[in-house]
């Protein structure tokens, strides 16, 4: 079990003939084209090689937790959208799940199905655009990214039709969903889901065998299995390091035990950027499988249980977690009998996955540091909260 922080190589500066050399200290970010938001890495370079790296957080910090502690339970639901703004649906779900545990509300079956559909569509949106961003970080001038966005657009249209907003959906409620999907929505969703594999085929043809992508990503940013577990890495990144751990399978929350799907993972020998990229590509296929089953299995019925809009839970502590596209998204709530949560804590997968950034980047080239950051899949709204 290796949990120690990586130590920067002992670096001796060469002094020769009165000439002094020093390391190049570059502050990458907070305004850098590929730090995925206002994120900063203080990098020390020897030529192009990274010899030290310190991530710097907090440029987007707004103390989401403090805000939520001064607000009713329902009131912080729209703020959860803004955590990982790519995946507002799963953020909503994690929060709703925790709150439902707190007050023990039953969710109607149709709502559960719709939740699964929304969450898996979100996963498609996240993975497809992450792969696009990742290849963009490799320098591909946005072509894969724009293909990804073309497909994302179709899914965002579905979100807009269902919830009224494309990204800040605010669609889930304690005990179900805010409203039912409009008429014909399920058919449109089926259409999108049926066409997605065609796009994925093309995407794989474009990316998966490209020699440049292979040689850029393989052997870069390796993360060992032990370190991944110890550092609490979750989501596709953990599975790329060879751990078969998917909360959809482990917790079987909601109705995930009704669906047949597989979890792709590696044998844990390498755990490099290529594995992380490929695990996401493969996961999308499984999401489509779940979506097809969910769209076939959905029945009629109400979508909102009879939960009160404003409630006062009894004093209790809960921790609810879901498998968000980026990893384990957890909400830790402590109720004290008032309409406001006494303690509201988000367990952000993006932040915790960044723990090992330094370990993965040391000794790599500066160009690799960028793609390693890209392969971690962070959203700064969630890192800084």
């Amino acid at each position, binding site marked *: 079990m290796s*949990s120690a922080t990586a130590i920067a190589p002992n670096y001796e500066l060469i002094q020769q003939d009165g000439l002094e050399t020093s390391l190049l200290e570059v502050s990458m970010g907070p305004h850098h084209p590929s730090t995925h938001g206002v994120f900063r890495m203080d990098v020390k370079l020897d030529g192009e090689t990274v010899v030290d790296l310190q991530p710097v957080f*907090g440029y987007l910090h707004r103390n989401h*937790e403090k805000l939520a502690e001064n607000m009713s339970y329902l009131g912080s639901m729209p703020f959860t959208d803004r955590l990982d703004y790519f995946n507002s649906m799963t953020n909503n779900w994690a929060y709703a799940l925790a709150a439902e545990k707190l007050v023990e509300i039953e969710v109607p079956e149709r709502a559960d199905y719709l939740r699964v559909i929304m969450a898996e569509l979100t996963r498609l949106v996240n993975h497809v655009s992450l792969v696009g961003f990742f290849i963009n970080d490799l320098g591909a001038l946005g072509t894969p990214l724009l293909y990804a966005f073309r497909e994302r657009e179709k899914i965002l249209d579905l979100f807009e039709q269902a919830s009224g907003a494309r990204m800040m959906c605010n669609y889930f409620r304690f005990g179900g969903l805010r409203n039912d999907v409009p008429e014909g929505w399920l058919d449109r969703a089926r259409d999108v889901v049926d066409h997605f594999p065609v796009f994925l085929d093309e995407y794989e043809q474009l990316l998966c065998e490209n020699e440049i992508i292979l040689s850029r990503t393989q052997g870069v940013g390796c993360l060992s299995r032990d370190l991944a577990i110890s550092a609490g890495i979750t989501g596709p990144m953990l599975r790329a390091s060879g751990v078969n751990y998917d909360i959809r399978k*482990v917790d079987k929350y909601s109705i995930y035990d009704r669906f047949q799907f597989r979890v792709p993972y590696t044998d844990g020998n390498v755990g490099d950027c290529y594995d992380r990229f490929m695990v996401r590509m493969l996961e999308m296929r499984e999401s489509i499988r779940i979506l097809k089953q969910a769209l076939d299995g959905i029945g009629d019925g109400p979508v909102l249980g009879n939960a009160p809009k404003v409630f006062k839970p009894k004093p209790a502590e809960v921790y609810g977690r879901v498998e968000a596209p980026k990893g384990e998204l957890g909400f830790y709530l402590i109720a004290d009998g008032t309409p406001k949560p006494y303690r509201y804590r988000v367990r952000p997968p993006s932040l915790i996955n960044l723990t090992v950034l330094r370990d993965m980047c040391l000794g790599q080239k500066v160009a690799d540091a960028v793609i390693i950051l890209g392969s971690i899949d962070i959203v700064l709204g969630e890192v800084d909260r």
Partner: protein
Amino acid sequence: MSHTVNHESILGKFPGTNWDQEAGALIVPTVQAKEIATWLRDNDAFLLDYCSNVTGVDYLECEVKEKVTKEDGTVETVTRTEPSRMDVVYHLYSMQKQTGPLVFKQRTNREQPEVESLTPVWRSCELQEREVFDLFGVNFKSHPDQRRILMWDEFEGHPMRKDYTEPFDYEWEPTPHDEILEKHQRGKVIV
């Protein structure tokens, strides 16, 4: 739902620990925390190799009304003062056994909060403990890199504490009504 962890054996092995039934949490004395954590991680019965969530909870001194059933059967409401405290909460899971969570709390005082850092046991605590230090002011002994993480280095105070009051020269958005408008009109607001 994942399987819960049997906590009875921990209580037996480490007499200093308590089980908080209401919160469903294991309360650990800070001096023993690292030892117990390592044991929980390595013991075959638990293998809690994955620390998911680390956070602090700040409890102010408060008055709690409790219903006490007396010997003669009558119920009486008693008010007692709960002392202030600071909890650092760890949610532990096992990836190998796919069990969890075990809630693990280190309890300390509010004034000089100091607990044992569990970063040497689980790497995932590194950034989260920094966050707890930043937002709650809990000092983690033997944390490898204890600095502010989300607030800037010059920031004073710990904003997640329940008694934190924001400084007046804060950058308010001057929405044109309410108390914020008053502050705005007093002319001290930086826009």
